[in-house]
């Protein structure tokens, strides 16, 4: 009964800790200064720098690209190159390859021919060649015969697409050197699904007449999504003509880091360019970027033949990344709570300072700490009347 009553009474108590006021400039300064530090940390670092009150989401994006340009070369069966020829694959997704240099092997058929001469393929007679040998690094299956490669050298014969490709002489100057003047239009549409936020890299205020004439320049036209390949490469710190010879991979990096709060609603793409494959000068181990592809034909007799291209070029990877932040209640609650906890630690620091570093620490600790001994039942301290003692 009494316990229950006590409970009810407890409901209507208000309890608050006793406060000891210490009018001392030093400890007051330490207290306020520590408090200020915590508040600065919370406001400056947690809120302003880290934006810990925000929920974040990462970007989901689609990219379409469109390359424009025309190239001319004398050193190939095809003299005039347009988009359909040099952009592989042609769709224009987030990665496109612009062919700049090539080794063309015309009119290969499935037949027999002698291997290219090197120390393992040179032979004197048929005994040097093993029938059926399929060297993974070779170009075909050996027939076991030793044939004349030229008037002086004999090599083993293989079944393969013949004549074999001779890729030792890469043109020193890129065949499609005018590719540096090609332009690419990048259309990028992003969404932050958590915030239901959609945006395109062509800003709403841009119209088509501006797009027809503009070109991306960091200083004057930072919003124009049309890039000249030469400028992309030079912004990445490379020389186009150097890179065009052996190829390479170049990243077009679009950064969509956004602050979607209404007071800071600014969300525009930032472009940057970087070479992604490692470029070690004079490294012989598979430098640059190349791949082979072939065009297949039928001749009148119904026999299939192909033209093999070893294509060197620059692959442009459009890399879209970014995180968006928007005010969220839960991160705010959690971080504010943590900040409050930090603030409640401040008196501990001030107490420590008060009780250890000050000259009159004994006086303060006498006031701050009152001892209660269990064996003395009575009240430890009686209130002394402090007036009229004399």
């Amino acid at each position, binding site marked *: 009964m009494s316990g229950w009553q006590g409970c009810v009474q407890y409901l209507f108590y*208000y309890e608050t*800790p006793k406060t000891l006021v210490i009018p001392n400039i030093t400890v007051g300064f330490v207290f306020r200064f520590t408090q200020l530090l915590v508040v600065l940390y919370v406001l400056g670092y947690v809120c302003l720098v880290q934006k810990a009150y925000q929920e974040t989401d990462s970007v989901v994006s689609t990219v379409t690209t469109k390359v424009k340009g025309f190239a001319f070369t004398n050193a190939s069966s095809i003299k005039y190159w347009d988009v359909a020829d040099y952009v592989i694959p042609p769709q224009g997704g987030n990665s496109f390859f612009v062919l700049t240099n090539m080794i063309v092997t015309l009119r290969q058929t499935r037949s027999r021919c002698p291997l290219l001469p090197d120390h393992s393929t040179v032979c004197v007679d048929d005994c040097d060649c093993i029938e059926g040998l399929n060297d993974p690094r070779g170009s075909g299956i050996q027939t076991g015969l030793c044939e004349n490669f030229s008037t002086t050298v004999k090599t083993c014969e293989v079944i393969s697409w013949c004549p074999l490709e001779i890729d030792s002489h890469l043109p020193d100057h890129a065949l499609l050197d005018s590719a540096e003047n090609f332009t690419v239009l990048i259309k990028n549409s992003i969404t932050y699904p958590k915030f239901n936020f*959609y945006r395109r890299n062509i800003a709403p205020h841009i119209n088509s007449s501006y797009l027809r004439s503009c070109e991306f320049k960091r200083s004057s036209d930072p919003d124009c999504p049309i890039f000249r390949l030469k400028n992309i490469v030079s912004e990445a710190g490379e020389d186009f003509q150097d890179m065009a010879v052996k190829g390479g991979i170049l990243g077009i990096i679009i950064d969509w880091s956004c602050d979607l709060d209404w007071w800071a609603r600014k969300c525009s793409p930032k472009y940057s360019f970087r070479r992604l494959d490692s470029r070690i000068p004079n490294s012989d181990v598979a430098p640059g970027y190349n791949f082979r592809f072939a065009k297949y034909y039928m001749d009148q007799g119904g026999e299939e033949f192909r033209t093999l291209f070893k294509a060197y070029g620059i692959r442009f990877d459009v890399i879209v990344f970014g995180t968006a932040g928007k005010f969220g209640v839960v991160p705010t609650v*959690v971080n504010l709570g943590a900040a409050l906890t930090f603030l409640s630690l401040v008196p501990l620091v001030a107490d420590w300072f008060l009780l250890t570093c000050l000259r009159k620490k004994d006086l303060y600790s006498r006031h701050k700490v009152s001892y209660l001994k269990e064996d003395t039942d009575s009240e430890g301290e009686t209130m002394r009347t402090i007036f009229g003692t004399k």
Partner: protein
Amino acid sequence: MPCCGVLCQYETNKLVRIQSVKLGSLKWSLNGAILLFICIMLLWNRSYQEFDLVVSSVTTKVKGVAQTQLPGVGDVVWDVVDYSGPSQEKNSFFVVTNVLMTKNQKQGKCPEVPLKGRLCRTDKDCEKGGWDQQSHGIKTGSCVKFDVLRKTCEVSAWCPVETKRSPPRPALLAAAENFTVLIKNNIRFPAFNYIRRNILPNMNDAYLRSCQRGGDPLCPIFRLGDVVREAGEKFSEMAVEGGVIGILIKWDCNLDRLMQRCLPRYSFRRLDEKESNRTLYPGLNFRYAKYNTVNGVEERTLYKAFGIRFDVMVFGQAGKFSFIVLIIYIGSTLSYYALTTLMIDWLIGTRCYSADVGQNYSEKKVESVQDKQKCVLCVSYVDENNIRLVKRSQKNSLQDITPISVQSHKEDTRHLSACLLQPGVSVDQDHQPPLDHKPDPAPKSSPPAWCKCARCTPSSLPQEELCCRRSEGACIASSPLFQQLVLRRSLLEAVLLYRDPLSAPAGPGHTALRHCAYSQYISWRFGVPPSNSHPAIPSCCIGRVRGEYPSPDGKYSGFRPARMVSMQACANGDL
């Protein structure tokens, strides 16, 4: 006990408990509100869960056949291989809806297409080797007939050059609207090792063959026309120039055992800009070529393919109960309860709550450690009903200092009962009449400027320059009650005896009697003085008491409230 030291001690905060229904219920309702808020946030945002982002793979399969009438070719049947474009991309598929074909192009020379002002009259208009973005080839330097009326510069290029610029209307493969696509989406939440796909376990072959999105939102087979329509577009219009449609698959999963739910939600959206005046090259198109040789001469057929690219975007997250996350959340929200105390303390301090209670409360709650440099004096005037707290100053006289705060007078009732309600003491042994006016020494010299009652003695110390009243008027020391409460010898002796029953009767020095008279005055005029302040006695009263109980050598210690003395001594008003 002392050997225990720090280890055997428990330190706890001192509490001030106010028994007030109002404050108690306010505290509980504030706590309840905070708890409610935290719980709602916890449940609403599932803050007790650990979240993981989806990892997914997508494969698509488009089905459908369309027949078109191509100019110059005749009826052409298009199946998947034809209309899907040259190669597949990751997470996306392409459907050709419209096409411009230029057949049998050879490397050679031919007139350029007349595009806005590209006409020429003579060879001089055509610069040899000239080239720009829009042209199809390199100018040879001659001007040739394009058709009957117009002449254009000749270019070296793939000839004949592509002449048509705009796609045919209506789209050639508008029938692609009826194609269907099966999207297979396998997802994984690596943190929970949870695997699922969008073809649910209960979907069998027969279901997949017959299901439609209209009837079942989980059906993984979509008609392209429906997809475009749900994206808010018209397929027949979009098919002309192409575009990009996003198929968004959202996996919002709850993996807790009680409420397990993990189903995909599909939505569709057009991703590219459809208004052609806002963008360059609206829609989506690309060119590709098919090569062949005729008599050893390389030829190609150039296709400009317009179509719709469908990008499948998978996103989402799964949440599962995590004890650590819950603990972190609770831990960081616990500190909010400290706000209740802060808020109520503030509320009591302000005027919103009753001022009396606030006064009482702050006295109980706040204890001040008096440092030597601060000594607050309290002053009471006979013509004012409250007590002023003033800071001591070395320059101004105490009378003129503006108060730092004004407090109400608190009666010490015990004093009253001791002094007034003891008739035996107060009346019987009193030889002096209460209204006995002794000639005072003060009126002889003119009173100082700060004196309002004309009975003060001039003083060199500013802290002694205090009168008993603010405005001109009679001195309190001349009142009969002053005589009765402060000066009466019998009362003072009784008080001294009360304090120390065995003390000798007051000697000729009068020191004890004088000090007792001071404390009588303080108890009378100040009651219980505000804490941490030292009552100051007006100069006129000091003069009167000294006149009544003079020191034999004529030396008095004077008013020294806080000079190298403890708080206790300071409070005594050591005079």
